């Protein structure tokens, strides 16, 4: 049966796990691939900038230390699961 109130956009079941903010996605990526230590605290922002810069350098991107469009695109691109930094 159809509904009276049709939503403009449908969230499918498996999309829920990717319903993270860009920042959360980036942090997850940086941790997973070895650019950012697991521990969070007061230095998170500093650590994020440093980690982003490290990642940008390693991936051959412009080193801005910011979560810019190019960096976000790279983070969302398909890749190998082996960490880039560390064991």
């Amino acid at each position: 049966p159809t509904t009276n109130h049709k939503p403009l956009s449908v969230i499918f079941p498996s999309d829920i796990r990717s319903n993270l903010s860009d920042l959360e996605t980036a942090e997850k990526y940086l941790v997973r691939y070895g650019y950012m230590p697991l521990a969070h605290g007061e230095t998170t922002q500093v650590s994020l900038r440093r980690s982003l810069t490290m990642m940008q350098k390693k991936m051959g991107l412009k080193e801005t230390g910011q979560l810019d469009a190019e960096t976000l695109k790279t983070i969302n691109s398909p890749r190998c699961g082996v960490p880039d930094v560390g064991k």
Partner: protein
Amino acid sequence: FQTFEGDLKWDHNDITYKILNYSPDIDPEVTDDAFARAFKVWSDVTPLTFTRIYDGEPDINILFGSDNHGDPYPFDGKDGLLAHAYPPGEGVQGDAHFDDDENWTLGTGVVVKTRFGNAEGALCHFPFVFEGQTYNSCTSAGRSDGHIWCSTTANFDEDKKYGFCPSELLYTYDGNGNGEPCVFPFIFDGESYSSCTKEGRSDGYRWCSTTASYDKDRKYGFCPNRDTSVTGGNAQGDPCVFPFTFLGKTYRQCTSDGRDDKKLWCATTSSYDQDRKWGFCPDQGYSLFLVAAHEFGHALGLEHSSVQDALMYPMYKYVKDFELHPDDISGIQYLYGAGTGPQPTPPKPSKKPVPATTPSTPSTTTTTSTTTASVDPAQDPCKVKVFDAIAEIQGVLHFFKDGVYWKLPAMGPPKTSIPISETWPALPSNIDTVFQDPQSKKIFFFSGRKFWQYTGNTVLGPRSLDKLGLDKDVDKILGAVTRNNGKVLLFNGERYWRLDVKSQTVDKGYPRNTDEDFAGVPSDSHDVFVYQGKYYFCQDFFFWRMTWRKQVEKVGYVKYDLVRCP
């Protein structure tokens, strides 16, 4: 390139591998071939050999899995993380795992290998024409037994070449059913099933019984994906069902309606609104060959490279005609050495008369006159292994070696060498570095601890490196990177200095470490120069090309890519 900490590598060259299971996306034969080709990428440039084994413990185990698949590093569903592998060693080390939530292809869309029919197992040709109608996927049209088929040429009506498409009615894979097709309905745990099911499993793979009762016979196999099978979503492996309804509207093909990311999806039952079963429609997919070649690089001891065109760069990129990048070759040969290479081609009979070893007896044989001039190896730039110096002067690349130099012509390799003494009489034969200051157009030559400055035909020098403010321990300058601001960077392996050309002194704060400021290039480069605005760092036969943003964009051969030797 990078290797794992401690240069982890296999202690033997005869590597064994085992394929533990298959993906429902690709026919096992195509999978076997993709893995074999991926190993060949590495065996072609090393002494390594790869042998597939079926029993015993191999060096490299290969498996497909989804989410949690038996190691501490779960996969993440469709896209994102595609595969991972472990560096050489025992146990899980050396193994390669592929995320089966991906759509595995050869990179350009679903690969449908046919069976039976009259096309000898050829791949489906999409689109194809059958009875005047065009088909973009396998069809059961024209048949009453439910088997799906395709044409293996563009026009079935003309060529009559066909084969059957993968389906559970044709065959199963893995399991213990010897590849027999599913038997429907079948009984499992007292329940009757009339299609493949994921019941009883936690890994999401669809299976069926190959006899009428699994409970009785315990014979089973996994169901191959149909060419319209979905990936991701919540109905992985099930085929799209057309037409289906979504929000009351009928769809006869995949749609991106309801999604912001424009990905195409379909329902796997006739009503999404009722059953909520869906998945993504087959797309270009990821090349199993390319991803496997990358993962096997890890399994042999290579870490991720920063070179964007290298196979070992962490991001996936489809390339049609794959060739192993020099950076990858350098990496793997660093670990295992070079292979023996292709068999030599027998030389063609020379037109040049061969001098007699004993000139006393006059030859009665008539020889043709020589048309090919002999090439003195010392005068041929293509025979030079490592140049003394390379530099761009007046916009033209110059190669220096043992008292001569060559200028790179507009096309092809340099033909004629010129004695250095003819052009710059004050110089010695062995030059370490040359650069031309872009502003003053002055040319500087370095040899050992001395340097010369040419302005036209006027020469200054030799002068000592001391004059530039360089310490006594600097025995030579190995390279130079010029800039348009009157500064030039002088390299000596792991250290570099910034020279102010006008004052001819090095700036304060130097030397700095090359590897800290120029990541991704060899810190022991024996030639560094600028050509057409890009930085080149040479080591051995190779160069690393870097942009002004210090991004390594290419690793190539000096001989082939710069000197343009055939």
